[in-house]
């Protein structure tokens, strides 16, 4: 199984029945494909929709119904539409139970950098800053190393932050890690075939291993 699917499948097990969930653009969007059948979540999109269904195909496409990534989507029974002010009121007001976002860097204090590399790639933060501050639980879905093979999970973020101290959980292809500010990262699950040493070597942040460390299964 490729990393992106493995990570997404594990993230998808984090939700409880009835959760309102916002999935970020890119790899986080894949999580929707793997939500267990016995768990029903309401997907929110910051461009103004609750109750997102599968991608729209052919005659299902309504040019006025997209998700935040610009994909034409269907709406499920019970869906609703609203303007951007109401949408971010939902987000900032604590009505979103969990958000899943990617990261350029994340650190052991729960800081997240995901929107800007100075002097290089400029995309803007979109709704990410609002989501990270507003969602009750912030889950980072990311590959453990960057394209150069360097750690992305750091003691302290070096890139401009998306938000300070808001991340709760990191899921990578190597491990599941909880953030406990002031105490480093707590590894609760480790992927099959990954040793503790390999994980420590691939991570700049300080790691502690849970007494009930489990094998990361999807």
């Amino acid at each position, binding site marked *: 199984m490729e990393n992106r699917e493995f990570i997404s499948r594990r993230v998808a097990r984090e939700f409880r029945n009835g959760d309102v969930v916002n999935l970020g653009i890119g790899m986080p969007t894949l999580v929707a494909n793997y939500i267990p059948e016995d768990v029903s979540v309401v997907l929110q*999109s*910051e*461009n*103004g*929709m609750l109750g997102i269904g599968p991608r729209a195909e052919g005659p299902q496409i*309504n*040019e*006025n*119904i*997209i998700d*935040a990534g*610009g994909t034409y989507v269907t709406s499920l029974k019970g869906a609703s*539409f*609203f*303007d*951007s*002010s109401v*949408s*971010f009121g939902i*987000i*900032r007001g604590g009505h979103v139970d969990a958000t899943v976002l990617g990261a350029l860097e994340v650190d052991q204090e729960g*800081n997240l950098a995901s929107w800007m590399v100075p*002097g290089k*790639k*400029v*995309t*803007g*933060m*979109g*709704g*990410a*800053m*609002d989501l990270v*501050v*507003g969602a009750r639980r912030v889950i980072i879905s990311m590959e453990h190393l960057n394209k150069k093979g360097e750690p992305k999970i750091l003691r302290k973020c070096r890139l*401009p*932050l*998306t*938000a*300070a*101290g808001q991340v709760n959980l990191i899921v990578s292809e190597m491990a599941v890690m909880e953030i406990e500010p002031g105490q480093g990262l707590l590894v609760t699950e480790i992927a099959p075939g990954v040793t503790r040493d390999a994980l420590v070597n691939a991570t700049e942040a300080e790691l502690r291993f849970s007494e009930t460390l489990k094998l990361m299964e999807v």
Partner: protein
Amino acid sequence: MNNKIKNIKDAVKAVKNGDTVMVGGFLQCGQPQHLVGALTETGVRDLTLISSDTGSMETSNYGLLQSGKVIRVMASYIGGNPEAGNFMITGKAEVTLVPQGTLAERIRAGGAGLGGFLSPVGVGTVVEEGKQKLSVDGKDYLLELPLRANVALIKADRADKAGNLRITGTARNFNVLMATAADHVVAEVSEIVETGEIDPNDVTVPGIFVDVLVKI
């Protein structure tokens, strides 16, 4: 009642040199492509563009930026438009990135007569630079100020002759907010019906906010 229906060329003449222009939509959804395209064809210059995003190579905001008419951009996302990224890196235009929810609420505040609002978004990031930070019940907030424009260009599915607009799906986005926050509001619509033909329960934007209708 004044006739609000104009042709597209006359409608975009409302935008003058140096104006701040709000453009509704989110990515390709709900963008007033035709109005922005017509604006791009005019001779105006030194515009400030306020929009959720700067679109993609396929959307009209891209052409507007390429035309060199825009000297300032305020948006939350410029990733789909390489021209906007270049503006930011080379300093050809001043680009201000604003968290999307903060941008929406600043526009709402501008249209609702508010002097600003306190938001926790951006605390501890570059977004707080130059802003007043206030603490309420032990939690830090940034004072965010209202935004208004000279002209707003928006899009709706349907209008009646009184300017009442019906907008469906996720095309409500910034269109609904920008309709309230500009001195002059131009809406591009697919259909114009007689006043009264849109059920008042179905009006998304009340007609008092809308000055000009352009049927596409």
